[in-house]
């Protein structure tokens, strides 16, 4: 049985991007790299929302990425990827499968197979959908020490969701990693 894990950055007030889709406040350094490469090492499949996939495909298949971050560029290109989209006809990046309307059944099938984690990165809408369908096993949030005030919500859930704390780690650059496991829906409310 495989786990579906999602990793994303959030500001302290719960935004994923500011209103200009700027991400410069997401501070990464050597300590982050070591941790992040560890989670990528545990992943057998990458699951991405369409917007995140497009951004990743453009950057990580570029000569610039191979130059500045060859380890991650090679790893992300080689790993099997599933992009969730009902409109994408052809994927622009190697080792990609496009999953459309049948995604939920496909993920339930994939989870039953042996293997490494199915890893979601930076896909806020997809992550919230996975939480609400009960498919997500682990939510890893890197909380940046910044207040944005407004922007794209990191957790656009349509109902309240109870979680269980599975771990936390303070990074030297002020980032705070929080790891949660969503509770089954019937336990989500204290009422």
């Amino acid at each position: 049985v495989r786990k579906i894990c999602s990793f994303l950055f959030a500001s302290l007030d719960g935004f994923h991007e500011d209103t200009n889709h700027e991400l410069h406040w997401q501070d990464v350094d050597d300590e982050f790299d070591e941790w992040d490469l560890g989670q990528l090492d545990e992943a057998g499949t990458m699951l991405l929302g369409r917007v995140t996939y497009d951004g990743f495909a453009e950057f990580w298949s570029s000569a610039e990425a191979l130059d500045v971050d060859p380890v991650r560029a090679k790893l992300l290109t080689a790993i099997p990827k599933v992009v969730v989209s009902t409109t994408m006809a052809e994927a622009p990046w190697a080792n990609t499968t496009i999953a459309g309307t049948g995604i939920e059944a496909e993920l339930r099938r994939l989870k039953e197979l042996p293997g490494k984690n199915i890893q979601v990165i930076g896909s806020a809408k997809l992550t919230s959908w996975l939480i609400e369908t009960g498919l997500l096993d682990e939510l890893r949030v890197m909380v940046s020490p910044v207040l944005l005030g407004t922007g794209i919500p990191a957790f656009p859930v349509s109902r309240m969701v109870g979680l269980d704390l599975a771990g936390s780690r303070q990074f030297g650059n002020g980032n705070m990693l929080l790891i949660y496991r969503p509770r089954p829906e019937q336990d989500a409310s204290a009422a």
Partner: protein
Amino acid sequence: MRTVVLNVFDYSLDGILAAEGTEFFDFCRAAPDDPAEVAWFSDCLARAEVHIMGRVTFEGMAGYLPDAADHPYAGIMNAGRKAVFSRTLPGTGWANTTIARGDLATDLAALREDGDGEIIAHGGVSFARSLVRADLVDEFRLHTFPYLAGSGESLFADVAKPRELALVCSTAFGNQTVATIYRRDREPRG
């Protein structure tokens, strides 16, 4: 010059404050007490020179703590210096309490200049949001519950432009809340 510390107990991962009557509020109250968190907050309270709060929080505390000898915070809160920010509260009936009826920023500035140490702000929702809106907080102590509220009263909704903070420390408690302390270097005020 005193620093203003805002302590927020009921904060969600998505930045929502648990207002009374919401499912999030019930979720927070259902979480077990952790002796380590009680000790953590007792230290905070003992360090504070002044306790400030809005009317709603004041009425909750003043109606309960004076006769709650066994409550872990009763001794400190009953003896401590308190200021309640309200234009409508007729009187306090709680020892060592004054009412600040004027402009929040002006009255708080006077309290800050009145000595050293910490002023700790206790909430509630509307008072905390007023402090954030006017950028009057030097240090945030947030207790993040394992919860996504989806919607509700956002503590930081009135932040008009991005504010950088510095993470000071963090503590994960046995009841699954994580307390984080963030400092803010505010712009000098004219």
